[in-house]
């Protein structure tokens, strides 16, 4: 209590939560102890996550398509990406690893790309959108990604089995074809205890020299 300047009931609430998450053991008359690192779900953040990368289909995952419909293009897409037409194919999916939900993803495909797509074709590719587009001749050449930590909204929370407001890793990705035309805008909400994005950046001489000139 002294360390954090909070009331007893607040301290108890915090400890109750850690106990529910099975990260501590409370022994009456003795004290509270940290548990050993248990199964991946009980000691999440320090375990190597089961998935990396956002573009491909991670091995061992299954997906469920919950929405597949043509909708009027949402305003935020028209503002950001003028290449979208009046209507957009919206595909919302939940992806599971070992039957535990890992990500809720909502993809928006421009009419030019999505018009001929069927739900059955998607099923044939295990629900993977970009590989399906590639098979149909829309190969993605680049994927721009933007990361944010956001509170889970009710949809993300219920899809991922989290409390509303719990932190989720949000990745907004834009896939483009070799002509730089937009193929898909995908909004991912990952459970942070089951996923982290990884990448490696090499610093060649060229980039270093450029930076030196600027500084």
């Amino acid at each position: 209590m002294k360390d954090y300047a909070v009331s007893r009931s607040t301290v108890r609430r915090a400890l109750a939560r850690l106990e529910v998450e099975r990260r501590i053991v409370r022994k009456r008359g003795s004290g509270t102890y940290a548990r050993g690192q248990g199964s991946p779900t009980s000691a999440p953040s320090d375990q190597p996550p089961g998935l990396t990368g956002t573009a491909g289909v991670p091995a061992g995952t299954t997906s469920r398509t919950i929405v597949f419909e043509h909708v009027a293009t949402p305003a935020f897409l028209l503002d950001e990406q003028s290449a979208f037409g009046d209507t957009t194919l919206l595909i919302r999916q939940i992806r599971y690893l070992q039957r535990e939900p890992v990500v809720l993803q909502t993809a928006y495909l421009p009419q030019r790309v999505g018009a001929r797509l069927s739900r059955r074709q998607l099923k044939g590719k295990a629900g993977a959108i970009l590989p399906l587009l590639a098979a149909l001749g829309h190969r993605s050449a680049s994927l721009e990604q933007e990361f944010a930590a956001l509170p889970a909204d009710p949809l993300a929370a219920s899809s991922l089995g989290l409390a509303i407001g719990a932190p989720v890793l949000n990745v907004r990705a834009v896939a483009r074809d070799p002509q730089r035309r937009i193929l898909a805008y995908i909004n991912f909400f990952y459970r942070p205890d089951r996923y982290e994005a990884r990448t490696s950046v090499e610093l060649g001489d060229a980039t270093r020299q450029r930076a030196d000139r600027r500084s």
Partner: protein
Amino acid sequence: MAVKTRSRRIGPPSTGTTQLASRRLDQGVARYYRLYELLSAALQDGTIAPKSALPSEPELCAQHALSRTTVRRALDRLEREGRIIRRRGSGTYARPHKAIPRFCFDLNALPETLAALASCTTATTLRFEPEGVPAHLRAIAADIGPTAYLLERLRCSRGEPLSLTRTYLPEAIGSRIRRPIPTRASVMMMLDRLGPPTTEVSCSVGAVPADAAAARLLEVPLGSPLLRVRAILTDDSRRLRAVLESLCRSDRLQLKMMEPQPRAGG
């Protein structure tokens, strides 16, 4: 600053086990604050467009399984912050927001990004001393050894906190760093002046709730979502230069990355 707690359960009965589980995990953070944070994020990223109407109070109660008092508390706070306007008999509307400048951290242009960061932000050194390396960082970079020099810095832009970074430097490197630590240089710049330059940075990006220390320093409530970036810096001979863990406010720092896609079949 005790948080008032209420033991009364509010809202409709849970319908499934998932919901039950999430309810229990929800213990420890004030309910109104959860809703405040959600609406706040939606207002900021444009999910609720400027000047458009927010859901009505009864709708918010139903969607989030909250009492009217709790919903009002969240809206009161947004109103105080000047983010919404409540019009009697009409509804609640998003105020056109002043653009909050976000610093863009582009992983594909790391040297440029670090140079820009150094020129328009300052990093205050909170600690610089030998320290045990936490097990989770030793697990991803075994070469660091059990103890290393810990450099803890808080980076601010015009006095507003952006990120809290803990960098662990191998003893051979850390012992050569001179004090005082400059407020403008990035860790990579400091290291590059000392020896073989960093040629590879492996990063992982995740999300975590703010702990007590991070919440206080980054000026966010306990449990707020923060971006967590871990990075391993190595030189040309693949020798470890540093391991760092940074907690970032993603409302102030935009993290970007461009991934070239392999050719089909790759």
